[in-house]
């Protein structure tokens, strides 16, 4: 890197980091206003105000960044309101927009890297940059769809006209016009080369964005809608579970569900299975009959406990439902099978409500089992060893169905340990598990409950789903992919299908995995922000938002007017040398003193300092001026050239005294 470029990367010509940030922020603003673009206006206007204020702090003399930021923000605003009609879910990805932004930013970057400022000679102005960038955008608009360009270019040209004022003073051409012209030509040639490079970069950026549009779009959708695709759909929740060595081979931290409600039920059923053959539970989803949900199943008039469940995954279309559910409210079309599994055909991914009945109103969602269903639920698989059957009879005892089921659960919990993996060998694994009292995972415990309950004459089925245990905010539980679990349901007359989870407590997902880390929690809270913000903004009434826009616009206008007015009044200093400019009050005090001298007919010449002038006047006999004027000059010099702003009150007091003594005749003090 040459010294020229190196020196350009700091101080006045540093890379426009702020500009890049502003462009990203404005794009994010467009994200969160997707579908309701007017709501983005106040937000982007606030951001514009913010960048207007903060860029001065980033670099007080760096007009490049400020102009670049303003362009980026205005483009963002125009992009938001100028979008063509139609279903453009993520408008920023449209080529014409990315083209303009990409080229503009890359051109800006390249040109800034090539700029060699020489203060006093040719002042490189942002007008030149804008002019060249306008050419770039015009070229771009001829390549892609022109529609948004027609909106952006007039505003761009307006900005150009305003910033061309900076081009007025371009140095001192009077002395050596030929040399100056040569230098300008050289500079333009340099910029031409940089611009070509910039355009190539810009087109490259656009090409990459459009080529990987799908990937970027799906990422953006994930980010925006809290969607998290579950990787490698966990444990085959919607397919036939197979008894194998490891239950959940790749437990992931991805969030699957958010559950709101005050119920203590933690088991959320996804699929139930009642046919066991060859180590596999069935029927799988392809062989089931789903019927459209009945009015009763959708009856929102049901009273009872309510859960609100928000799916965060679109890996499968099944709904997770607590065992005791009697009705579901969802936005899409629901289907229910005979085993109580619920599927949502369309609109998957939106929240749904589940109602669980009070004890006296108990009716399972899928209804009471008919004879065929009961028969299937009582069928002991043929592969089960007679010793297992004997064991089951011995364990269950002779009580009623509930006590029998309790005995089964107690037996399994006290005689078996939990293990994350279990090698079943080639024979029927349940035989090995029960007869040899092996340690295994939850699928085996669940299957064992089903088999033993059936031996005891209690209809039972195997269930896969989630175990919700992790608190997430107030009265909310979050369910992660790793919380997948298996348990059994047993039918007790008068109580319906009861959850029977015989897995030892050390084997439940909350015990196996422990709490999520703080870092994870914060990251999830942060990534939920855009969705929450959007939901909040959609609730704000339109009129209120328009009022807010009007207020912000008025405030911006007032601030702009004040700034322009102040700038006009300020004394021009060529270079500050890093020191702050004199304050308005100090300048005003100086003017007051000059007027005081004028009134006394002793105006100071331009080529004399006040101190010399006042000392000369005081040296006359009699002195023609108040000795306090010397005090004023000393204090003023200290404030003006010494930066001692704290002298201002003393300066003003002395001035007041001088003006008062001038008003009174014969009040001059003689030195």
């Amino acid at each position, binding site marked *: 890197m040459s010294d020229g470029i190196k020196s350009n990367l700091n101080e006045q010509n540093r890379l426009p980091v702020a500009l890049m940030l502003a462009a990203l922020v404005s794009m994010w603003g467009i994200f969160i206003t997707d579908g309701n673009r007017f709501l983005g206006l106040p937000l982007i206007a606030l951001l514009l105000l913010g960048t207007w204020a903060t860029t001065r702090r980033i670099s007080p003399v760096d007009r490049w960044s400020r102009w670049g930021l303003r362009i980026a923000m205005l483009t963002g605003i125009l992009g938001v309101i100028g979008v063509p009609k139609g279903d453009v879910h993520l408008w920023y990805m449209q080529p014409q927009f990315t083209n303009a932004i990409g080229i503009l930013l890359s051109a800006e970057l390249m040109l800034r890297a090539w700029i060699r400022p020489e203060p006093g000679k040719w002042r490189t102005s942002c007008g030149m940059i804008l002019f060249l960038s306008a050419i770039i955008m015009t070229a771009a608009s001829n390549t892609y769809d022109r529609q948004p360009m027609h909106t952006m270019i007039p505003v761009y040209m307006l900005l150009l006209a305003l910033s061309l004022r900076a081009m007025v003073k371009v140095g001192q051409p009077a002395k050596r016009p030929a040399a100056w012209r040569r230098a300008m030509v050289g500079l333009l040639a340099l910029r031409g080369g940089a611009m070509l490079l910039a355009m190539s970069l810009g087109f490259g950026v656009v090409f990459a964005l459009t080529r990987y549009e799908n990937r970027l779009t799906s990422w953006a959708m994930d980010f925006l809608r809290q969607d998290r695709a579950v990787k490698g759909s966990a444990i085959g929740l919607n397919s036939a579970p197979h008894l194998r060595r490891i239950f959940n081979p790749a437990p992931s931290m991805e969030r699957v569900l958010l559950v709101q409600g005050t119920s203590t039920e933690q088991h959320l059923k996804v699929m139930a299975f009642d046919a066991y053959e060859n180590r596999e539970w069935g029927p799988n989803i392809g062989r089931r009959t789903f019927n459209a949900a009945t009015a009763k199943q959708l009856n929102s008039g049901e009273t009872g406990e309510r859960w609100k469940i928000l799916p965060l995954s679109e890996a499968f279309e099944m709904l997770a439902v607590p065992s005791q559910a009697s009705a579901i409210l969802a936005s899409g079309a629901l289907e229910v099978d005979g085993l109580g599994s619920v599927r949502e055909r369309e609109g998957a991914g939106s929240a749904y409500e589940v109602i669980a009945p009070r004890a006296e109103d108990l009716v399972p969602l899928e209804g009471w089992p008919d004879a065929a269903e009961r028969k299937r639920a009582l069928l002991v698989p043929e592969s089960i060893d007679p010793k297992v059957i004997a064991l089951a009879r011995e364990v269950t005892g002779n009580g009623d169905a509930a006590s029998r089921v309790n005995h089964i659960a107690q037996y399994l919990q006290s005689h078996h340990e939990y293990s994350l993996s279990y090698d079943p060998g080639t024979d029927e694994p349940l035989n090995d598990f029960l007869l040899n009292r092996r340690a295994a995972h939850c699928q085996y415990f669940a299957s064992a409950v089903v088999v033993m309950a059936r031996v005891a004459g209690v209809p039972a089925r195997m269930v896969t789903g989630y175990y919700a245990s992790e608190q997430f905010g107030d009265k909310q539980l979050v369910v992660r992919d790793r919380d997948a679990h298996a348990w059994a349901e047993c039918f007790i007359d008068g109580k319906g299908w009861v959850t029977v989870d015989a897995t030892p407590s050390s084997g439940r997902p909350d015990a196996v995995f422990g709490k999520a880390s703080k870092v994870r929690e914060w990251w999830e809270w942060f990534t939920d922000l855009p969705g929450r913000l959007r939901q909040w903004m959609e609730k704000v009434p339109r009129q209120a938002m328009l009022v807010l826009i009007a207020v912000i616009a008025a405030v911006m206008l007032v601030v702009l007017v004040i700034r322009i007015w102040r700038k006009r009044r300020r004394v021009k200093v060529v270079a500050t040398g890093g020191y702050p400019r004199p304050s308005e009050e100090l300048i005003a005090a100086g003017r007051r003193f000059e007027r005081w001298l004028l009134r006394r007919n002793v105006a100071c010449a*331009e*080529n*004399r300092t006040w*101190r010399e002038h006042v000392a000369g006047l005081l040296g006359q006999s009699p002195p023609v001026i108040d000795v306090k004027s010397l005090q004023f000059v000393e204090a003023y010099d200290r404030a003006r*050239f*010494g*930066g001692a702003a704290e002298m201002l009150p003393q300066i003003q007091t002395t001035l007041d005294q001088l003006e008062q003594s001038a008003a009174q005749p014969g009040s001059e003090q003689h030195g």
Partner: protein
Amino acid sequence: MDKAIDGTFAATLRSLEENLSSVIRGKGKSTRLLMTTLLAGGHALLEDVPGTGKTTLAKSLARSISGIFRRVQFTPDLLPADITGSSFYRPQDGSFEFREGPIFTNVLLADEINRTSPRTQSAMLEVMSENQVTVDGKRRDLPQPFFVVATQNPSEYHGTYPLPEAQLDRFMMRIAMGYPDHESEIKVLFSQQDHHPFNDLKPVVTCEQVIAMQTQVRGVRVDAAVADYIVRLVGCTREDARLRLGISPRGSLALYRTAQATALMEGRDFVVPEDVRALAVPVLAHRIVADTKAKYGGLRNEQIILDALEKTPVPR
């Protein structure tokens, strides 16, 4: 808040000034200008008619600083190697040994600098601007602080070689001594009755203190308006049609530094335009070259600088 002025600085300055005043009487302004040049890190040219105490002042200053002092009497037969030093061949081991010249000192008194040939005078160019000497291709740095006080007699022309503009430009200030006033000249007579008061002089400031003071000077605040004023003043001379050569950026830098030193000597940590105006003539007058017509028309350099001061508006 005069944070730069601490007791030590003021006390050191006072003792230095008193030391010099005990020898040189009635030349308060010249003494202060010389001290200003020392603090600003530049070199001084004392120019005046013979017998006004130029050499005595230079020697007094040198003795007041407890550093090395060397004196070079510039004669027409002086060679550059007599100033910078040269390499000698050692037959014992066949090697060359560099013997340092008198330039390797803290204070160098270059007496009657205009009596030596331009060839020898040019040996001083690198020395004065860069504080280093290059002999036989090897660079050797001079000790710090390094201060050259040169003297010259402007009224004699026989056997003298006027200093080239390049060398004049390297002197930060040209100080005219002038004659002492009546009372002071009487005191001079009586003070040298038994012996010269110069013999009683003792060092009052060390080299380290000088370096520290020079560093403090650089920290004095110069407002943008004052810097602008300096550059306008200097720019005025560049556009003056009567001048063949205006003031270089070295001149504006010299004015900048000496203004800082003056401000500090007066107990301020900021420069005011008066500092610049007071120093304009001693710092700038010797750097300009009037064209032939102006020179022989009787126009003096000091007048040109005063005209520039008149033309340039003062910042407020």
